[in-house]
């Protein structure tokens, strides 16, 4: 494993040899070194129980690492939390769908924390909320109750709520769970637009390789959720080398059963330039972010 090459942009997230074990258990994660540049989109995939939730909790400051250090734009996760550096989009099941609030009320909840109870919501926050709703494409239904929304629309409400606090890092936990292909595609397009704005660093945690990769989800034009993929099963398999994430790595992470779960899938992540290699293109479909897929080769099954 080699660290990603230094670029001119500053690192947004740095994990330096992080380890964590729950009391009385084997280490949940160990030796995690990770560097995400500002404006980059990284997906961390891995099987259930592989340490994804632990990694998220460490990043959000809900757990303190047993070893190593974490910095988010130069500050600790706890400081990042209090400074609202991170916008977090949880799995949608954590919010109460039957709650009688409108999209606008739900989105404003995060941005209004800490306001004086004696004052009305300031104009700047109202505008930030409206802007966030617009960025996720829900302006037309901003006054609709959240209970009347589809799963994909509700997921975008949670995304808008995270954006309304104007974070520098956006963390999405299993954004594709319980959402149909059309909803996933709309979410991917929203994330792509946010990425094009060039301000946000994104970290996406998922077990769903197929949805994260893009073309596996909705054809060759489908938007991917990320620029790079790292695989996590207790240790992190983070590859920026031209070889990318090999089928062997994925098979190791998913314990040889990836093809049984997802069908015959091959995913490689590598730098976008490598996709220009003619030798590489044969039999593969590409996207401009460097995720590379091939449904014809059962390379994982043989790995």
């Amino acid at each position, binding site marked *: 494993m080699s660290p990603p090459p230094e670029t001119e942009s500053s690192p947004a997230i740095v994990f330096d040899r992080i380890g964590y074990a729950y009391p009385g258990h084997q280490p949940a994660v160990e030796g995690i070194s990770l560097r995400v540049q500002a404006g980059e989109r990284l997906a961390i995939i891995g099987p259930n129980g592989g340490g994804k939730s632990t990694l998220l909790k460490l990043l959000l400051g809900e757990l303190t690492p047993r070893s190593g250090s974490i910095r988010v734009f130069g500050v600790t996760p706890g400081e990042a*939390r209090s400074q609202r550096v991170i916008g977090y989009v949880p799995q949608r099941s954590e919010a109460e769908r039957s709650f*009688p609030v*409108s999209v606008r009320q739900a989105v404003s909840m*995060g941005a209004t*924390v*800490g306001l004086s*109870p004696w004052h009305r919501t300031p104009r700047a926050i109202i505008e930030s909320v409206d802007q966030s709703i617009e960025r996720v494409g829900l302006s037309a239904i901003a006054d609709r109750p959240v209970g009347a929304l589809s799963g994909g629309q509700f997921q975008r409400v949670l995304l808008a709520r995270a954006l309304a606090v104007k974070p520098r890092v956006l963390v999405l936990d299993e954004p594709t769970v319980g959402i149909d292909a059309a909803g996933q595609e709309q979410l991917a397009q929203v994330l792509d637009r946010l990425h094009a704005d060039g301000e946000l660093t994104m970290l996406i945690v998922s077990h769903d390789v197929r949805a994260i990769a893009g073309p596996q989800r909705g054809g060759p034009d489908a938007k991917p959720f990320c620029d790079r993929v790292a695989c996590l099963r207790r240790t992190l398999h983070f590859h920026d080398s031209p070889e990318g994430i090999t089928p062997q790595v994925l098979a190791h992470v998913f314990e040889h059963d990836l093809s049984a779960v997802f069908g015959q899938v091959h995913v490689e992540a590598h730098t976008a330039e490598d996709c220009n290699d003619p030798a590489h293109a044969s039999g593969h479909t590409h996207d401009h972010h460097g995720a590379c897929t091939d449904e014809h080769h059962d390379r994982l099954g043989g790995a």
Partner: protein
Amino acid sequence: MRTLDYLFGPGATMQPAALAAVAVALLCGLLSPVVVLKRMAFIGQGVSHAAFGGIGLAAVLGLFSVGAAGSGTPLGAMGVVGAFCIGSALVIGFLSSKSGVSEDTAIGVLLVASMALGFLLLQVHRSRPGGSAISVESVLFGDVATTGVTQAVVAWAVLLASAVALFIARRPLLFWAFDEPMAESLGVRTGAVRAMLMVVLAIAIVVTMQLAGVILATAMLVLPGAAALQLSRRLSRVIVLSVILGLAGAAIGLVISFETDWQPGPNIAMVYIAVFIAARLYRSTRR
């Protein structure tokens, strides 16, 4: 009409009870949506039953012996019952969060323990020389006949204090109720919000107890909000409807009580249940 005599006739004997009932209905209507949305009905049930233990304790401490007849629960006794309810609410919270006991088990244990303790302490109180006979039926199902001016003033003071507390905490309270993990991660002190609501709930139960009794106090805290949530999915409308339905149900139940001379708790509870069923039917016809 006995109601008119009771309220406006000579002595206006039931005026304090009616004024207390209005305050209690407004208070419960205000709290009810959050109790329903946060699924706290069973906690309310546990805390209201804990009041019975508090009444037993107040009786043993001799707090019912001064001016008990015809003047409702004395202030000292209300204080002990209130402290018992708040303590019970906090114990439920502690047991379910720290000791690994599930919340419904913690409530079940506390509910039974409070009822048993209350009965035993009342027996001790009765067996003492000079121990006044406290009507268990009134405690369980409410009794407006003994509601005096003091109880009405206390009910209105509790309503105003609770309304101010809910207004101050409205933003964190809403976020906590909607999405507790996210509220916590964005800096809402969810433990404090929950504790505040539990304390308001416990105090509300103490003043509700006089009208609806220990057993049926929960009806006033659950049914107005449950009915309102059948009728609207907009928060402001749900709160207004809950308050209106709570007030209307209590008024109708109280009038039935005045006319029949029955305890108010069961009448109010039955009116609320009818309102809830009507709201449910209305919703099903709108689909």
